[in-house]
C-alpha cells in the first residue's frame, strides 16, 4: 500500500489518511450542521428555528475568519476523496443523506415553508451515522486504495 508523508515526520498509509479526512468531515460538517438546532431551546419560535437553519447550512463552520457553508464542506471533501471510496455503497448512501439535508436550504428564504425541528434534526443527524458507516467500510476494505 502506498505510503503518504503528511505533516512533520508522521507516516500514514492512504487508508488512514482517508479515514482521517472522514473524521474531519464528521467534525466540521456532521457536528456543526446539527449544533444550531440541537442547542436551540425547546420553546423557540419559528423565527429562531429558521435562523438556526440558516446558521446550520450557510454558516456551518469557521476556519479562522472564513465562514464555510455546509455544501462547501461537502464539496471539498467529495473532490478530495479518492475514486475507489466513491464507488462504495456506503458513500452513495452518505451522498444521498447529505443532499437531503442540504435541500433544506430552499426553506430558509421561503417564509411559507413549514419547518419542524424534529424532522430537521433527523435529517441532519443522519449525516454523522452515514459517515460512521463509510469509515467502517474504508477501514475494513484492506485493498481499497
Amino acid at each position, binding site marked *: 500500500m502506498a505510503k503518504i508523508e503528511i505533516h*512533520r515526520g*508522521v507516516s500514514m498509509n492512504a487508508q488512514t489518511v482517508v479515514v482521517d479526512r472522514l473524521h474531519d468531515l464528521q*467534525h466540521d460538517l456532521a*457536528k456543526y450542521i446539527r449544533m444550531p438546532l*440541537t*442547542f*436551540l*431551546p425547546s420553546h423557540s419560535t419559528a423565527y429562531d428555528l429558521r435562523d438556526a437553519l440558516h446558521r446550520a447550512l450557510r454558516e456551518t463552520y*469557521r476556519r479562522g475568519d472564513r465562514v464555510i457553508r455546509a455544501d462547501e464542506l461537502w464539496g471539498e471533501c467529495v473532490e478530495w476523496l479518492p475514486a475507489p471510496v466513491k464507488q462504495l455503497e456506503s458513500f452513495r448512501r452518505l451522498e444521498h443523506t447529505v443532499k437531503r439535508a442540504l435541500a433544506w436550504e430552499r426553506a430558509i428564504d421561503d417564509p411559507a415553508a413549514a419547518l419542524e425541528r424534529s424532522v430537521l434534526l433527523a435529517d441532519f443527524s443522519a449525516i454523522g451515522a452515514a459517515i460512521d458507516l463509510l469509515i467502517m467500510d474504508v477501514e475494513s476494505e484492506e485493498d481499497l486504495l
Partner: protein
Amino acid sequence: MRRPRILVIDDGLEYARIVAQHLPEFELIEPLGPDAPARLPDGPAAIAYLKDNAESVDVVLLDMRFEVAEDRLLPLNTNRSLKRDSRFQGIAILRGIRDGHPELPVVLLTAQRDLALADAGDDLASQSMTYVLDGDDLDTLRIRINTAFQNSRMSLAEGDMLWGRSPAMRKLRFRLSTLARGTLPVLLEGETGTGKSFLAERYVHRNSGRDGPFVVADLASIPADLIAAHLFGATRGSYTGAVSDRQGVFELADGGTLFLDEIQNVPLDVQRQLLVVLQERRVRPLGAAKERNVDVKVIACSNEPLDQAVKAGRFRQDLLMRLGPATRVQIPPLRDRIGDLEFFTAELVTKAAEHPEIAPLFELVAQAAQLPSGARMRLQLGRDGNADNTLRLVLPAAGWNLLAEHRWPGNMRELAFVVHNLVTFTLVEAADAIRAGLPIRAPRLQIDPGLVAELLKGSGGAMDDLPAANEDDDRISVVVRPGQTLNGVSVEVEKQYFLALFRRYDGDFSQMAGHLLGDDSKARAVQLRFNQIGLKVRQLRRR
C-alpha cells in the same frame, strides 16, 4: 446569589454564542474585553489568562478540536503530529490547565468516543473536576455546567464526614445525596473500615428527610437462627426462648431508617422473607396472624460484593435485584484515594486533639507553649510552617513516607486509629516532660517516625499482604482489585509483580533485569521503572 462565571475556550464562536444566548443563568466571561468574542481562541491564550484570573472563573468550557496556527497549538505528546495535536488539542490544553489549577472545574465539549481515540479516557476519568459533555443538547450542557459548579463548591469535610477531593468520593457523595432523598433501598459495598455504617447514619439517614429513628441490625453478631425474629419480630412462644412478644427492627425503624449491617450473613431462607418485606412494605412477626405496615428506608451494607455471594449461592439473586444494583454504592478503599491522605491525616490530627480523653493533655502542652485558649492542633509535614496560634504536630518526611506507602487494609478506621495514637503518644511524651519540669516552650511537637512504623506494623505493611513470588517457576500471583481507572489497576498489578520480584532477587536489580529483559546490564532501566510506578527502592531495602 451570583451567577456562575463561565470561561469558554474554543477556536470557534459557537459555544460562546450558545451560553450567551440560551443559558442566561450563567455569566459568560469576556476574557478579551467587551468588543471581542467572549472566548479564548487557543491553549496559550487560555493558560496565560488563567494564570492571573483563575479565581474569577467558576467553570471552564473547553472544546476538543482547535484549528489554529501551528505555533498556537500545545503539543499533545512528544511525538508531535499537527493533525493529532489539532484534533485532540482540548486534552493538551486541559493538561496545561491542570498544571496550575488542579481543582478548576472543566467541562470538555466532546464525546467519550473522541477521548477513547486519544487514549485519554482513563486519564481524564481519574482527574478531579473534569467532566465530559457527551451529547449536544442544551439541557445536557446546562446540567453538566451546574454539576461541575456545585461539585466545586462542596467542602472537603462536612462535620465528621471527611470526603476529600478524589473524583470517586465526589461522585459517591453526589450519588448518596440523591439516593438519600428517594424511597429505594441503598446498598453500600466496601472493604472493612471504609465507613459504611458511618455514611449510612451520618449522611444517608440525616439527608433522608425522615423523622423516625436510625436503627442498626448488626447481622454479623446475631445467631443465624435468631435473625428472622430480630428482623421481623416474634410473638410469645413462637420459638424456644420467646418468653414475650418482641418487635423486630423493621417495626422499630418505622418512619426512619433501618441499617442492615453485613446483610450477606442473612440465611437463605430468611432472605426470602426479607425480599417479601421489601416488596410489600409489610412485616409479619414470627407466630403472628396479621401483617403490619412499615415505612422504612433500608440501607444494606456488605463487605463483599453481593454479586459474588450470589455466584457462590449464598445470596439470592432476586433479593440483590430488590436491593437495587442501580442504587449500589461502592465506597473506594483508602489506597485508591491516597491523594487525600494528607488532608485526612491533618483533619484527624485536629479532631484527635479535641477528643475528650486527649484534650486535657493538649491543653497542658498548649499552655506550656503559651498558646491562647481555644488553640487547635495542626499537622505539619516537613520543616516549614508558620506560627499561627496552633500547636503544630510535625511529621518528618520519613514518617510521612511510611504513611503514604502503607496499603491501609483497615481503610479510614485504621488511619483514624493510627493518627489517634500518634497524637496521644506524642502528647503524652510532651506532657510527661512538662510535668517533670522541663522547659517545653515551642508550639511544635515532632512525631517519632519509629512510632509511625510501629503502629503500622500491626496492621499489615505495604508488602505483607501481597503474595510472594513462587520460587519454583516464573509464575507470580497478584491480586487484582477494582480501581477507579484501568491505568490505576494496571499500575497496581505491576507494583505487586515488581515487589514480588524484588523479594525473589533480594533487591538485586541486575538479576531482575535478567529476568525481565534477558539482560543483566539493564538494571538501571528496571530501577527507573520502580520509581515511575511509585515504588521507593530505599524504603524497600530498609524493610
